């Protein structure tokens, strides 16, 4: 295995959140006594990323994803721990380091608000000292894939969210970075726009061998793009591995959708649980490990008249949501570490 492109050891970021007294007198009191809470946004995490990987970095709101990315891009200095990316310590060797990375923050643009997109991109050519031929070649390609032409002359502030995101992606990649950080690049986009961005990310990773660390709340982004996922919650890494192995452990429930030939008030079915009933149509949920679908189907056909049936896996979104909500990873052997110990 080659040298990891990102090495993170015991990385920690703790914020002091001050509780201020209000008003004039309060302002005066603030000078002398200020109380604060400590927020452990990122709490001693460690993981490596190999060149060429496309890693999904997921977790519920406030988990610490953006804080991690900000430390990896050099925007924030960690409280403790080590980070080595591309051979650099991001916040120490800022100028040299940022030359070879790209970053897109879905929540905010990195372009010049008042300038037409074309001017912004021109400026970036100067800033990154991109040779003319590379610049033209990249720009030509991105304009086509990301369909930028309709708004090349539009000031960035007037772009729609989806257009802006495409513009930001283009801007972050013109200088051929070997490593790209994408913090919620599909946030707020419609299905078509999301799809387009996903295809682009895939293209970057497959065709250009760019290493990508991606955060998102849309699990289908991860399911479509990433082999490896890292799950963080409350600043701790709960899982690091293949999405499939995660789903095998927790995606254990399957759905059996049955269309009965006649109406049964309570078509009970052994260990399967009815989760939805709409006239003749009933959806059962069952544990994959405790009973097989064929057994259930046999039981069904013995007791009821069936018109049609279908076995489905539970949607990944539901699985992941369950993992967050029920904190399944905290007590599971497949979880990275147990925060309570």
């Amino acid at each position, binding site marked *: 295995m080659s040298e990891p492109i990102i090495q993170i050891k015991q990385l920690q970021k703790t914020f002091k959140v001050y509780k*201020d007294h209000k*008003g004039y007198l309060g302002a005066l009191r603030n*000078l002398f006594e200020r109380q604060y809470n400590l927020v452990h946004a990122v709490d001693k995490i460690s993981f490596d990323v190999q060149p060429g990987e496309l890693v999904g970095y997921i977790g519920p709101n406030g988990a610490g994803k953006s804080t991690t990315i900000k430390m990896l891009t050099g925007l924030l*200095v960690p409280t403790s721990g080590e980070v080595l990316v591309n051979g650099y310590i991001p916040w120490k060797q800022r100028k040299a380091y*940022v030359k070879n990375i790209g970053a897109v923050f879905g929540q*905010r643009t990195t372009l010049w608000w008042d*300038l037409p997109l074309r001017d912004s991109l021109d*400026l970036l050519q*100067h800033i990154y000292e991109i040779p003319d031929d590379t610049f033209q070649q990249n720009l030509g390609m991105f304009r086509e894939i990301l369909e930028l032409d309709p708004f090349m002359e539009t000031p960035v502030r007037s772009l729609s969210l989806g257009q802006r995101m495409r513009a930001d992606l283009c801007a972050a990649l013109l200088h051929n970075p070997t490593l790209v950080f994408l913090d919620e690049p599909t946030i707020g986009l419609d299905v078509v726009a999301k799809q387009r961005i996903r295809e682009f990310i895939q293209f970057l990773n497959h065709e250009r061998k760019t290493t990508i660390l991606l955060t998102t709340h849309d699990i289908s982004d991860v399911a479509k793009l990433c082999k490896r996922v890292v799950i963080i919650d409350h600043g701790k890494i709960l899982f690091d591995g293949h999405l499939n192995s995660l789903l095998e452990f927790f995606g254990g429930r399957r759905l059996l959708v049955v269309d009965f030939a006649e109406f049964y008030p309570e078509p009970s079915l052994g260990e399967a649980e009815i989760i939805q009933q709409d006239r003749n149509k009933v959806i059962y949920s069952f544990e994959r490990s405790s009973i097989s679908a064929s057994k259930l189907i046999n039981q069904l056909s013995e007791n009821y008249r069936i018109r049609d049936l279908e076995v489905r896996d539970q949607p990944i979104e539901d699985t992941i949501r369950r993992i967050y909500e029920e904190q399944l990873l905290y007590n599971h052997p497949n979880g990275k570490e147990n925060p309570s110990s």
Partner: protein
Amino acid sequence: MKRAIGLLAKLLRIQVRSQLQYPTSFILEVFSSAIILGFFFVSFALTFSRFDQIGGWTLGEVAFIWGITEFSFGVMDMVFSGFDYDSFGPMIRNGRFDQLLLRPVNITLQVLGSRFVLRRMGKILEGVIIFIYGLSLVNIDWTIGKIIYIPILSFSQVLFFGSLFIFGATTTFWTMERLEILNVFTYGGSEIMSYPMHIFPRAIRLIFTFLVPAIFMSYFPAVYILEKSDPLNAPGVVSFLAPLLGLGMLALALRFWKVGIRNYQSTGS
């Protein structure tokens, strides 16, 4: 360094171009702002005209130094627009400062290039007119030294006022970090008053924004150029402290600025 300057020039060129998109309205705006700003001087001059001189100074002499200072402030306001408290604050708050940290270019330079308000030509024009008016009224014993010192003085003033802008911008690194939290409780408005940052050093600010520049950046240099007698009987060198003060303040401001950036990187926004 050369590349950095080239980039700055390009940033400024793009902004100038977009601000000159409607040249007629731009020119009108510059002239009208020069006139409006000039009203203050005109009303001052009208009051003054009832006396021959005040405190031993004639109207022409006051206009002379007033014009220089006004000109310098206008130039500063144009060049250091990026550090303007009113535009730098929002830059921190909505995270645009992060974008500067992501680029492989000196940050100070990027802030300088982030805003260039060409409309400040109005103030510059006003300064020039008042200066010329002053020149026409006073009789100066011109020497090479004086001719050289006037642009040096103006440049020093630009640096001095610019440093104040940098100081002001830097304080936002501390005030903004708490803005979001504060906003949860208050509906804005009173927030300015809730910052010790704004209350505490008011006295210091008054001293540095008015007293020091008035005395060392205007009064004493004028004493030298116009050969006034100085009732304070200060030693002659005080007339030449302006460049030192300008450079010194800039050095201090830039150091404070670095500390501010470091703080920003440890607290986030």
